[in-house]
Every structure is written in structure tokens, then in C-alpha cells.
């Protein structure tokens, strides 16, 4: 199950962060996302250690914690997507697929002429789309 997704701008400013848990642990999840930013920087600045292909947008598993796995994605425009999940055996292909759909939703959201670049994404359509993608992630990995 995905517990948290986040979009972080190129100056490490949060653009969108949403948790999907019943419990009141938003702060903890935000902290995890915050920590992952350093890992993203490290991956990008030391490309030899980065994922399977050089400069790929998908950064793979950033770090595992006791209960969570954190995945990262960095677009060409230096916007970071962070995914926190509780599933311990996640298939890479599922995560890639998730990020691809998430990226498409993000692009559509920032292409809105009323969206101000580098400001938080407040679009309700985007929030709905993201929660749909998050829901279907659980289904595809179960099936």
C-alpha cells in the first residue's frame, strides 16, 4: 500500500505532498520524504552509483526503513517525485508504471495556464487523479 506521495521542486521546495493513511502519522511521513531528498542529491551527483542506466529519470529504491520503502524519480526539469510504500516486495515494473502515470498527471497539472510555476499544486483534479493512481497501484501489485 502506498502511504505517501510527494512532488518536490528543483530548489527542494515542496509542491505537493499527500499521505494516504488513516493514522495520524503525516508528520512522520513528511520526515521520511524530507530525508529522501539527500539520497536523491547523492544519487544524482555520483552518477556511477545510480540506477541501471545513466541519467534515467527513475532512481529506484532510495532507502528502506523498518516499515517503509522509499522510491524516487527525478524529471528532466529537476522536479522530484517521492513514493513511500509499506509493501515490502514491490516489483520494479509496478513502481516504474506508477511514476510514469504520476508524471503524466503532473505534466497535465502544470500545463494548466492558471498554475503558477514553482508554487504548490492546488488543483483538485490533480489530487483526484493521484488518488486514483495510488489506488490502482495496490490492485496491480496484488494481481
Amino acid at each position: 500500500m502506498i502511504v505517501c506521495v510527494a512532488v518536490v521542486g528543483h530548489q527542494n521546495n515542496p509542491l505537493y505532498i499527500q499521505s494516504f493513511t488513516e493514522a495520524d502519522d503525516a508528520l512522520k511521513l513528511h520526515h521520511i520524504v524530507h530525508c529522501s531528498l539527500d539520497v536523491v542529491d547523492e544519487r544524482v551527483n555520483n552518477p556511477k552509483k545510480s540506477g541501471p542506466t545513466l541519467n534515467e529519470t527513475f532512481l529506484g529504491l532510495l532507502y528502506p526503513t523498518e516499515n517503509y520503502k522509499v522510491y524516487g524519480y527525478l524529471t528532466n526539469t529537476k522536479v522530484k517525485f517521492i513514493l513511500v510504500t509499506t509493501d515490502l516486495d514491490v516489483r520494479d515494473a509496478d513502481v516504474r508504471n506508477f511514476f510514469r502515470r504520476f508524471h503524466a498527471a503532473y505534466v497535465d497539472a502544470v500545463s494548466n495556464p492558471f498554475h503558477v510555476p514553482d508554487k504548490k499544486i492546488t488543483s483538485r483534479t490533480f489530487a483526484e487523479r493521484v488518488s486514483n493512481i495510488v489506488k490502482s497501484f495496490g490492485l496491480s501489485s496484488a494481481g
Partner: protein
Amino acid sequence: MGREVSESCVDSLLTEMVSSYCNRLYANKPELAAPRIEAIGYQVGHQLSERYTMERPRFSDHLEAIKFICKDFWSELFKKQIDNLKTNHRGTFVLQDNKFRWLSHMSVDPSSENGSTVEDNSVAAGESKATQATSMHLYFPCGIIRGALSNLGIPCAVSADISNLPACSFVIRIKA
């Protein structure tokens, strides 16, 4: 997936945008029209670059990003690539398009062209006026290039040059 946009609509929109900024909105302050049109292009380029770089690996250096602009970005916008790319390897790039689509349906006002009977002075004046009018139409594509590159993390200044219609070149100067 591919959404189509009528080319003639885009042509008319560009012409109309330039004329309303120059002749109506900023008729009294012509020096403000150009930056405004450039700013619109900047936003368009900013958003387009986000979309067109979706499925590709990140660029490792400036040249790669510029090549992307010349090839893929230009093909998406104008169905052709840039014809010639020159660089001094110190942050200046010249992109030449031999048949720039947004200028290909433009012609110079005949009154300024058939000026052989008139005095040389007014011929030159007419020509420079026509050049100025054409160059107003290039602020928008300049803005697009600048917007796309800054979104890719390359701050730069872009200017355009009309050699002879419909060829034109864009000069990109990357800010150190």
C-alpha cells in the same frame, strides 16, 4: 494520443497577439510590448518542455539539452528540425532555421519593397520598419526557447535574427 492543432489558427493567433500588443494594449509604450510577448512565450516553452521531456533520460550537459531543442522539441512544434547549429563552445549557440514555419506565410509590405522610385532614405526606412514588424513576431518563439531551457536548468538569453525571409536564426547565450 497526439492532439492536432490547426496550423493556420496558430498562425493567426500569433499575428493577432503581436498586433494587439503592439497596436492596442501597448500602443503608447511600444517598448513594453516585446517583453510581454516574450513572457507569454516563456510560459509556453516552460510547460511544453515539461511535457516533451517526459519519456527521456536527463540531460548531462548543455549541448545535449540544446540538441534536444533542435531536434525533438522543434519537430514537435514545427514538424521539422533546426537546419544548422553552430556554437563557439563558450555558451553561445546559433540555431538556424532555413524555413521558419511562423514566418513562411509572411510577406513584406509591397509599398516598402517597390521603393525603387522613391528616395533611398525612405526605402531604407520602409525596410527597417518591415524588419521591425517581422522581428516583433520572433519574440514569441524566442520566449519559448528561453522558457524551455530555463525549465531544464539552463538560464539563458535568446535573441533572433532575420537574414532573409523565411529563414531566421536564434542566438542563445547561456548565462554563466
